[in-house]
């Protein structure tokens, strides 16, 4: 593997960084929302 992007690194790494942050972020957020909904429903079903 080659991570030496030379002077283009200034454009390439932000593109990869923003993509990674956005996609990991939306994944974590979606899982958290699902967990919240699941917990709320099971609490209501117990009542």
């Amino acid at each position, binding site marked *: *593997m*080659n991570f030496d*992007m030379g002077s*283009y690194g200034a*454009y390439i790494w*932000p593109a990869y960084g*923003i993509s990674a942050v956005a996609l990991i972020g939306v994944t974590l957020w979606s899982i958290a929302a699902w967990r919240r*909904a699941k917990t*709320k*429903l099971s609490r209501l079903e117990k009542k």
Partner: protein
Amino acid sequence: MNWLFRYANPHEFMRLSGAVLPFTAIGTALCLLAGLYLGFSVPPDYQQGSTVTMLFVHVPADVVAEIAYGAIAVCSLLSLVWRHPLADIAARAAAPLGALYTALGLITGALWGKPMWGTYWVWDARLTSFLLLLFIYAGYMALWNAIEDETRAARAAAILALVGVVNIPIIKFSVDWWSTLHQGESIMSGKIAPVYLWPLLLMMLGYVLMFASLWMVRVRTVILERRARSLMQAGA
């Protein structure tokens, strides 16, 4: 259409998506890992140098942005013609994801444009029609939120989604119909070198599987929320 309705009721959807999700999630991780490994092992392009690695985050985001819109359009059609409630939930749940991938396509494209074209942005056909896609997503989501009555909101949003479909072929063929800075189609025409094609295909598959996984999670979340809401109303 009967098979579709059998699987499109919320109970069946929960069962099926619960079974499929682990596979799409693991598939996403494997495709992205393999795609990144191969993507960072490619030789520099003879014209674009190392910026060719932008290909592996830019094109998959663009492709998923359009697939997500196609998915919304299909769900909208199902909603308008058959009034299926799950179709509305599915269409609405896909929109923020589609908008996110569109934004990623625009940002990575701008970051690729600067070193290659000398500019982050130019108002040419491909870039402008893709920016329009972001606005259509924004309008679609705003419309859902603007109308309080959910049935009416669903119908208005579905009509907007179907009208906006016109933009998808415009994005696709913009590089053929107008002269543009953006490079032409190179995957289906076989112009792309295999050394770049394989990591690109893996990343594209990874992005598509990721979208499918997140979409299912979001639809599942809404179904759970609705069950909770109806329990609360029943108990109140």
